[in-house]
């Protein structure tokens, strides 16, 4: 199978969908002339023209709302946020309008829109540029949320998101754009709501999503040296949520560590833990532990940043604790 970078996979997904359906267009800051802040839309302006590859001013609430309006009357916009830190300015549009209008209108006006862009910490970008925002979106009914961790999932989930008739937030990993991975040739779609076991194991389950899949795999590799077989379950979609996959891995290993990049309070992991205690209580041999970002704004200093981020070692430690080792 061929290898693509995460960036190329996203780019391919958008290009294929724009070729396939002319109601799809891309709008955001620097997506056109500049070829994209992270170069995901490199060459798109030449290929699709300024009507379908639209550079906007720095007006997140405004262009998010314009995209929503266009979606309300049948277009299928892809709104790129340079990062999801800036999308916080557009939360009113995403959560008050995109998430609710279909419901408020009694089902008259679906909103087939994709909001995509990088999320989470990169390297030393400090507090305002280093946020993992999954919780803000998964919290709200009316929104769907996917978090691809690999190039194949990036392509497959983005295509599924573009074809979905509801608002889908596609949270990409800021540090993943150069990561290479196998991506199937031809039409490749990953349906929303299907988790994937990224590594089989029997002793403990590391459940995670997004970029943290890679941290989980590192941790699993380290645990393997200690003869501990860790299973890595990548949720891929946070809403819809593959609860069956969660319950299956819990039943298999009886011990769970949830790994996420965001903060702990009311985080995604908190809900996963709730589901497990509610629906798999009798399968648990240990309390579920979470590994999250430190509960502080992201510091700039390199050493402090390292301390704040979830690490493979912290995951290993958590696994050992749930294994009573």
């Amino acid at each position, binding site marked *: 199978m061929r290898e693509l970078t995460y960036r190329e996979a996203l780019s391919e997904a958008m290009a294929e969908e724009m070729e396939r359906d002319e*109601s799809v*267009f891309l709008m955001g800051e620097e997506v056109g002339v500049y070829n994209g802040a992270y170069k995901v839309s490199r060459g798109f302006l030449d290929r699709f023209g300024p*009507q379908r590859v639209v550079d*906007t*001013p720095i*007006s997140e*609430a*405004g*262009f*998010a*709302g*314009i*995209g*929503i*309006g*266009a*979606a*309300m*009357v*049948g*277009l*299928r916009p892809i709104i790129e946020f340079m990062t999801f830190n800036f999308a916080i300015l557009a939360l*009113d*549009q995403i959560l*008050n*309008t995109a998430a609710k*209008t*279909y*419901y*408020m*209108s*009694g*089902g*008259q*006006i*679906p*909103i*087939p829109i994709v909001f995509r862009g990088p999320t989470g910490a990169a390297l030393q970008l400090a507090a305002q540029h280093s946020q993992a925002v999954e919780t803000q979106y998964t919290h709200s*009914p*009316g929104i*769907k949320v996917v978090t691809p961790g690999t190039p194949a999932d990036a392509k497959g989930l983005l295509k599924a998101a573009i074809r*979905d*008739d*509801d608002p889908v937030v596609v949270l990409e990993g800021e540090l993943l754009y150069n990561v290479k991975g196998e991506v199937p040739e031809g039409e490749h779609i990953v*349906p*929303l*709501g*299907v*988790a994937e076991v990224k590594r089989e194991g029997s002793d403990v389950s590391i459940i995670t999503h997004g970029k943290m899949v890679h941290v989980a795999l590192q941790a699993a590799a380290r645990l393997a040296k200690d003869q501990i077989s860790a299973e890595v379950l990548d949720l891929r*979609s946070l*809403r*819809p*949520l*593959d*609860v069956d996959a969660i319950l299956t891995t819990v039943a298999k290993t009886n011990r769970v560590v949830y790994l996420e990049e965001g903060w702990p309070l009311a985080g995604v992991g908190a*809900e996963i833990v709730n*589901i497990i205690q*509610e629906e798999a209580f009798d399968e648990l041999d240990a309390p579920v532990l979470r590994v999250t970002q430190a509960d502080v704004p992201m510091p700039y200093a390199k050493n402090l940043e390292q301390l704040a981020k979830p690490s493979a070692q912290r995951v290993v430690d958590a696994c050992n604790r749930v294994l009573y080792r």
Partner: protein
Amino acid sequence: MAKSRTSLRSGLETADLPRPPKSLGGLSREALLDFLKEMLLSRRFEEAAEEAYAIGKIGGFCHLYIGQEAVGVGAIRAIRPDDYVITAYREHAQAINKGISPRAVMAELFGRSTGCSGGKGGSMHLFDASVNFMGGYAIVGGHVPLAAGFGWAIKYRGEDRVCLCFLGDAAVNQGSFHETLNMAAVWKLPVVYVVENNEYGMGTAYARVSTLPIFERACSYDIPSTAVDGQDVVAVHTAVREYAERARRGEGPSLIEARTYRYKGHSMSDPVHGVYRSKEEVEDRMSHADPIVLLRSRMEAVGLIDQATMDALDNEVRAVVADAVKFADASPVADPSQLYTHVYHSLDVHGRLFLDRMNRSAAKVSEGVGRGVGGGEARGGVGANRKDS
């Protein structure tokens, strides 16, 4: 700056409005009678809503349009049925003006399944996509970019439609307003923004929190704008028609400040007058600048209407409103099964979409077959247009 300030203060005096001469705009008697009747309908509908609210038939926030009827009627009568209208939360009358039946609007206020939003929207969220009434929204300024989005789609598809967007005076101090006007201007989007300046954002007078008159704000984005007497239905109609045609020609967005006045409190739960405005002020405006009285007296002056015709119009609209109330009251409440419908249009085969305990797998089966986006089917769902009544 000094000039602007002077301009702002004087702008609040109705007498100083750049009102066109007391004209009937060259409109036919039929058109004028239609305006009159539609304004009467708006008035009587809101009076009935007020009464129903008082006896608990309507809940939540309920914002009445009484006093502002000329803006909705004048503007919406100036555009085509296939043009979009989007507005804020004081929108009962505008929804009717655009073509939703009074029955469907009243039923929505009553929270019934026959309401134009299936009982899920209520007073502030009236929708009927089949008549291109794209909704009432309750976050001040939040819907302003949506209008530009409709404009974007119109332009994207090369259509000659326009979007008419109503907003209140307080919305022009929201960031979304400025972001959107800028982009609408850059991309020459076919949107007519009608700012209904009823002088108070809830209890805060516009002048207390602003420096420039509203229509001058548009200058920042090189958008043509004007202020009209919002109590003069003909003036509003004339201005909107002109700007809508401009938009249709591809010349971009525009802004109209319609200076009007609300007779009632901000919402049904707010006082009509109090610390922010005096009883005398309200009574003065009601007696000197009522849009219905204004049009009627002008028509009388040139012999286009007599008392009998006026009475007949009023009786007709009162009957329509009484029928709407009766219909709403007799309508069934929303079926409990509707709780989880219309949250998502694509109900995924995989995974759990709803995370609460009440709803596990039910949502997967409760919603009907998926409907196409942008197709007639998708638009016909819950809303009922006037013909239904």
